[in-house]
């Protein structure tokens, strides 16, 4: 499979059908693993990096794993293709920018991906649509156990799975729930949410993970603690916290609908109008308007726009996607025109 072929499909997690999908976009779990006897990437020489890749790659491509994976060596991809993988949430920004031998193995439905030579030798991730923490963990656990058959992971009985950064040590498990919280943002309640989550040792990040700004009212909530709790405990705690946020967001959505229906309707339909007719649109404006449209669609202020279409528009209107669709390098100005046209067509087709 080639990277371009991703354009003819969209990830399973974007289909917008999972539980609680009015608020929860996706559930992501990741495991950090390092190979026994190999130095961490912090000090790894180029030789060690390629040794790790040479050692791991055939084992990821092997047929015996629970999922068939396709491996891309990032050095062999163009920068647009690598960015496309970032936009798809298959690799991190750091992995895209890094140098040296590194890669990613991806499952056909994009639900699973394994980065090689990122901060740790292996970073496994599974993304599912909506709130599906147990399902996502079960899948990653199966893959991890299968890989243990052929790879020896650095592990200590006291510290668990050993990671380059001690903030990941133990389970190596980070769970991130991506949520759309437009009503909390619109009603200026986000600070409250953020503060209470931080008190409970959860971090909140933007759409593309670490160090990114919240975009289009999307927030990723993840656990900070990885040591001293079992994987199931970490999941169970998140399963108590997330519903509280869902309840909060839904309350504010209904409050908006009851107290200021005109303001809400105007915002939603204005967004629709611009998206459907604009001839040029920046990524920021598109994300902002799509967010408003998504809110309108969940509250039936506007009908006939499936979540899947909206979720896909967020991803397909990102710079690398547009350039791959057009098959050429576009400057930001050209992208704005292409983006507007792409959105127009997609909305007209409904």
């Amino acid at each position: 499979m080639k990277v371009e072929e991703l354009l003819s499909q969209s990830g399973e997690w974007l289909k917008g059908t999972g539980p609680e999908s009015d608020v929860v976009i996706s559930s992501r779990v990741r495991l950090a693993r390092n190979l026994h006897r190999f130095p961490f990437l912090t000090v790894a020489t180029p030789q060690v990096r390629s040794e790790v890749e040479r050692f791991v790659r055939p084992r990821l491509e092997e047929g015996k794993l629970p999922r068939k994976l396709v491996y891309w060596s990032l050095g062999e991809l163009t920068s647009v293709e690598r960015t496309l993988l970032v936009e798809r949430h298959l690799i991190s920004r750091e992995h895209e920018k890094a140098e040296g031998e590194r890669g990613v193995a991806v499952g056909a439905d994009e639900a699973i991906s394994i980065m090689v030579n990122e901060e740790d030798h292996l970073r496994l991730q599974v993304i599912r649509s909506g709130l599906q923490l147990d399902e996502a963990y079960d899948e990653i656990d199966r893959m991890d156990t299968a890989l243990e058959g052929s790879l020896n992971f650095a592990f200590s009985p006291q510290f668990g799975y050993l990671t380059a950064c001690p903030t990941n040590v133990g389970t190596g498990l980070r769970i991130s729930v991506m949520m759309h919280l437009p009503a909390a943002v619109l009603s200026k309640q986000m600070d409250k949410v953020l503060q209470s989550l931080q008190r409970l040792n959860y971090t909140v990040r933007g759409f593309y993970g670490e160090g990114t700004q919240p975009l289009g009212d999307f927030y990723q909530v993840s656990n900070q603690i990885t040591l001293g709790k079992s994987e199931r405990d970490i999941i169970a705690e998140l399963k108590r916290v997330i519903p509280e946020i869902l309840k909060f967001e839904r309350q504010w959505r209904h409050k908006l609908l009851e107290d200021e229906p005109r303001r809400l309707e105007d915002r939603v339909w204005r967004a629709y109008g611009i998206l459907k007719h604009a001839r040029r649109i920046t990524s920021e404006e598109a994300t902002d308007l799509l967010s408003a449209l998504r809110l309108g669609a969940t509250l039936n202020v506007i009908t006939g726009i499936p979540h899947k279409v909206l979720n896909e528009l967020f991803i397909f209107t990102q710079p690398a996607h547009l350039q791959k669709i057009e098959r050429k390098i576009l400057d930001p100005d050209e992208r704005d025109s292409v983006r507007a046209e792409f959105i127009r067509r997609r909305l007209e087709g409904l």
Partner: protein
Amino acid sequence: MNCEKCHKNHATIHITAAEGGVKRELHLCEECARQTGALSNFNFSIGNLLGNLMEPVKSPKVSQVRCPECGITYSEFKTKARLGCANDYEVFRSELLRLLEKVHGSIQHAGKTPHTVDAQIRKENELIRLKRDLDSVVKSEDFEKAAEIRDRIKSLELELNR
């Protein structure tokens, strides 16, 4: 006076900097001073200076112990926030225990254990610890103890190579 940056530790480093003709005073704790690079212009740290004055025959400071496998020191870890290899967890054990307690509120793994090679890893962890002990025992000239440790290392290495 508390550190201006972390507002937690006591400020022990007082720096007067002149920027664009404006004099500014900075009051930092040693850790923050090191992190901001305020200390990097000096060839010594206050800690080392005091250590040298008070304990002339002190063993090398923890922050200067190098991991025999990957070669990093604990202070290098503190600047990069990334460890160099799995052995660092044994080499910098006591420092990391304090850090892990702070970050995770725990120092004991309670999750999944790989079904393979559990016994072997335990042995290897012990080997790392013994090699580290050997160094300090040799330095303190306790040769009887050193011979004992050396024997244990030999037999472990044999077991692991088999």
